[in-house]
């Protein structure tokens, strides 16, 4: 069982690392990086599900019958795209926030908002 599941567990570990960065760190850019790690790890999880022992990449070739599961790949292509889209938006927000507050640290921004 351990052998059967260990890489799911590692993936979970990766996910949680990303998740932790997002909710624990005050630096907006670092948050975005964390978000990316989180999402990438989810992608790894899905793709791992699709793997079939001794399976070939899902590109039809004569003589090959056993392919890895292509569906997770498709889903994750979409997920990656969504990921980069979100990242781009988040980063441009960071830039604007930095222009408006002169900082990308949550604490600074918060104190400024309280004072204003």
């Amino acid at each position, binding site marked *: 069982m351990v052998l059967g599941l260990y890489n799911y567990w590692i993936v979970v570990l990766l996910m949680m690392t990303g998740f932790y960065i997002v909710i624990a760190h005050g630096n907006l850019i670092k948050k975005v990086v964390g978000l990316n790690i989180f999402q990438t790890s989810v992608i790894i999880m899905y793709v791992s599900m699709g793997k079939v022992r001794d399976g070939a990449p899902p590109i039809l070739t004569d003589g090959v019958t056993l392919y890895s599961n292509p569906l997770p790949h498709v889903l994750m292509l979409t997920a990656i795209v969504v990921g980069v889209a979100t990242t781009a938006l*988040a980063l441009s927000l960071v830039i604007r*926030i930095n222009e408006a507050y002169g900082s990308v640290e949550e604490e600074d921004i918060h104190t400024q908002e309280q004072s204003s």
Partner: protein
Amino acid sequence: MISANLPALQVIIPLLAAPLAFLLRKPRLVWPFALLTTVLTLLVSIGLLQQVLDQGVISYAMGGWSPPWGIEYRVDSANAFVALIVSAMGAIVMFYAGTSIRHELPEHKQTLFHVAYLLCLAGLLGIVVTGDAFNVFVFLEVSSLSTYIMVSLGANRRALTATFQYLIMGTLGATFILIGVGLMYVMTGTLNMVDLAQRLPEVAETRTIYSAFAFVTVGVCLKLALFPLHGWLPNAYAYAPSVATAFVASTATKVAIYVLLRFVLTIFGVTFSFNTMPLGQILMVLAILAILIPSTVAIYQTNIKRLFAYSSVGQVGYIILGISFGTVLGVSAGLLHIFNHALMKGGIFLALGCLYYRTGSVQLDAFRGLGKTMPWTMAAIVVGGLGLVGVPLTAGFISKWYLVMAALEQGYWPLAVVVLAGSLLAAVYLWKLVEMAYFQQPDNATEVREAPLALLLPTWLVIASTIYFGINTDLTIGVATLAAETLIEGVR
């Protein structure tokens, strides 16, 4: 041909219109085009509801690939109802947007806003009509990203931070849903909702499905701002442009609630969600807290948009309370309140938009003597507010009545007390405004005039409908009950 493709058109029309509107570039061209689009969308959703009521559930195979291999659009009374709410608000608010946006945004941003609006509409409708679990995620992102854009266009710099927070929380929520769907997929090998519903029972008693359930629920609750996961909502609503607030407040959370219903009732099924899993109890506790705490916080707000944002969190509590019973009566009460609250809050935020249009502020001070200077705007806020309180002859009363009945049906009479207490809290924060508006003299009565008709008309259209649906409830109660039954009975 049209009628056969209605499910697809529901989403395609706004989705295709968005890039086309972007190509038009000039705001004075874009707005009429966008308005036309939203009206068409509304017509489609009316037709769709009609079709469902006549012929029952509609299944539409995207790309001609039959489910579960292709993506299925599956429309029953439940999501036809929600789609109608969304597209109706979409059309009315878009009409309002013409004037409001021209006033609130620089010219080169107006087009961008309208395009984002159309994308958001398409995204929300996509979530509602789809019958595919992963497709939900994709369109969730379409609607979320476009919502971020609209919110970020707010005048105050705090709109930016609000958007960022919203983006982080929203993405986390979506990713949680993605994880949950993945876990369901790995156990069943399918993404089609109906197929899932049929295959889950075999594997229902596995730890994987338990945690899948947990992740989906938490993710969705983040999206629907269930207390205490509502952190992103107040600022996002408070600092977004008026139109964005009105549209998002009346649709986005509602759609999220629909997603919760769809997953919990249709896919996992009532017995699993409420008997195997303690969903009912958890939701009930959170709902009670949501009704009492945010409504109390609302009382102390001086930014009135923020006040009503908190009130929204409270109102979501009512809906969730209804759902938490897991009974037909409860769920239909929830659906009713989705509809009624969409109207009431939409109307109120539109009215606040009128206020902002004239005074450039939504602070409490701006309400001084408003009863004299902007009688119609203020009256709209009051009527909408009475709805939130749940005064008879407003739509709000109907849903609360059913909610209380659902509670008593279960013998939970203390919950009736909670609901009434919530109404009292609502009465208090409404009273703050009334006292300011009607029993204070305006300090600068001279320049503040009533808002232009282009804003008042849609506002009052919505507000009047809250009265109408408080008196004639054949449509709402009928459809809501039907929808609740379909959801509860599920596909088995």
